[in-house]
């Protein structure tokens, strides 16, 4: 009896493992292995034909602490995330509410809000490059038309990060809008009517009913926004290459530079470990602290 059970459970265990195989293979090959390899690499020096790679312990991490560029880039990224995330989410919500209502040419408006999302970031950056270009750019020409002097938007360390942030918000909020729009359309209209009859203003309805009910979407969008704020650097290649003087450089762009321009994969791995750690910490924090407050239907 017992032997039979054991055999049976062994067999069913094997089936289970077999079914897991395809997913596991891909996860290991494309997620776990690279993560572990990156971590391992960060403890070695960069090898060349003349100087083979060797174990250096935490040396790479120590030089990271001394790396001015790293600190500048990290600071940039925090500002970049701190501004793009809340504004793009708020804008997305606002646009979603706006196009969810009755308005003429509604689908046209929806499409026009969504268009930036469909465009590849490289194309977007090229469009914006000509907005920002001094003298002949759209922005400068408009300013000049209004009687102001032009400004070297991307050439000024004080404005360049702001310019990058605007492009990102422009690109992202349309994408997040779609999620909010879908969520809004799943909200029964009677809820708003009921609230109205109870004397609630539009703001009260938004604050007490709509926004709490959109929380699952907000959480989802927020995690995406956080990841994107560290992941989305395509436009830097076109717009600024991180300059002037690293004023618009972000962590991932810096990692790219270190890995493929400086050919220092050891240090790039070190930076990557820091980036992964930060992202993991943020994601965990979001799930632990915010998830409790989210109402899932």
């Amino acid at each position, binding site marked *: 009896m017992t032997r039979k059970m054991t055999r049976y459970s062994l067999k069913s265990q094997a089936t289970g493992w077999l079914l897991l195989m395809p997913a596991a293979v891909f996860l290991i090959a494309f997620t776990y292995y690279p993560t572990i390899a990156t971590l391992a690499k960060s403890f070695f020096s960069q090898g060349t034909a003349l100087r083979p790679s060797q174990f250096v312990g935490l040396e790479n991490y120590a030089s990271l602490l001394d790396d001015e560029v790293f600190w500048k880039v990290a600071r940039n990224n925090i500002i970049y995330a701190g501004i793009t995330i809340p504004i793009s989410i708020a804008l997305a919500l606002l646009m979603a509410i706006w196009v969810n209502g009755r308005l003429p040419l509604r689908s046209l408006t929806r499409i026009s809000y969504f268009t930036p999302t469909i465009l590849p970031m490289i194309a977007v950056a090229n469009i914006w490059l000509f907005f920002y270009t001094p003298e002949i750019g759209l922005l400068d020409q408009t300013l000049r038309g209004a009687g102001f002097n032009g400004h070297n938007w991307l050439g000024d360390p004080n404005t360049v990060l702001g310019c990058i942030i605007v492009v990102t918000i422009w690109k992202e909020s349309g994408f997040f809008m779609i999620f909010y729009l879908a969520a809004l359309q799943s909200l*029964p209209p*009677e809820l708003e*009517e*009921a609230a*109205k*009859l109870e*004397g*609630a203003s539009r703001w*009260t309805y938004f604050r*007490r009913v709509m926004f709490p009910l959109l929380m699952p979407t907000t959480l989802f969008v927020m995690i995406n926004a956080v990841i994107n704020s560290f992941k989305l650097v395509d436009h830097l290649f076109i717009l600024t290459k991180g300059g002037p003087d690293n004023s618009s450089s972000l962590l991932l762009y810096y990692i790219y530079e270190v890995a493929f321009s400086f050919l220092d994969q050891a240090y790039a791995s070190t930076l990557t470990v820091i980036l992964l750690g930060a992202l993991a910490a943020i994601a965990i924090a979001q799930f632990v602290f915010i998830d409790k407050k989210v109402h899932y239907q």
Partner: protein
Amino acid sequence: MSAIELSDIVKRWGETTAVDNVSFKIEDGDFVVLLGPSGCGKSTTLRMIAGLEDVTAGTMKLNGVDMTNVAPSKRRISMVFQSYALFPHLSVEENILFGLKVRKIPRDERATRLDKVAELVGLSTLLDRKPSQLSGGQRQRVALARAVIAENKICLMDEPLSNLDAKLRQDMRFEIRALQERLNMTVVYVTHDQAEAMSMADKVILMREGRIEQEGTPDELYNRPATVFAASFIGTPPMNLINTTTHDGAFVIEGENQTQVLETSLSEVLIGIRPEHISITDDQGIQAQLLSADYQGADTIVNGLIGTQKVLIRTPGRVAINKPLHARLSWNKDNVHVFKADTGARTELINAVSV
């Protein structure tokens, strides 16, 4: 001064007219049912009273004050939605208190009213739950509690029982009616279920295609239907509507051609007889064929044929019909309603004959 007064209310969406010149008055403390098939404009009318739909034309007064274009929140009206419209993220207590908080009612008073209302609808033990943790009937009670706690004189209900099972629906009818009487509320209640209307209403307003077909007490609608539509909509099974014709100078049922059923006839008419007013007899009455029987427990609905005309007969006890058989049917002329075939309107000018 009526609690609610609608005068020539019209609602149009582009080309379609959903509500077409509707006027009625509802007196204080009345339980009025807006009845009709789906698409008849009853819900739209209710929503216009609430202010959730704009009025295309006409005026609406509450207690004599013109409220046609006043925001819903200023009308002091409560409403129970078909879907209950409970806020899923709020507890039962927060749902019930939502309006009071919005209107900044002091905390003490809120607590007092909550206790009272929770008691009234039997939710006292469930106040901490979320709507998703409640049964359909319990959600219904929360919706009622939310409507009641505002202490508005007028409460609108849009098919509030249609999501409940039959048994619960029965119970809730009595509860809602009892609640209304106890709090002396003016209720406008929308339903497509004529049985609900008959059992609950002080007054029924029967609507069809955006117009009022008949307005009156359940009794009046049942006993003196104003139109063929009213006759066929009220009662289960509905009233038999039978075509008549002239044969050898006699006014007879189509295809039967022997028995006089009307004294006179001015034009083509229909006669209406409720199934419960037809009895099956052995030797007298009109010739008929009985085709099948539908046993209901207390009585049986028999499917019959007079001439070419189908009739339903409600007869007490259990009757079994295995194969078609001949029988005779009889009715009293007082139970016969006469309608004009062309307009469908009731006429009193033609008298029926008992058979």
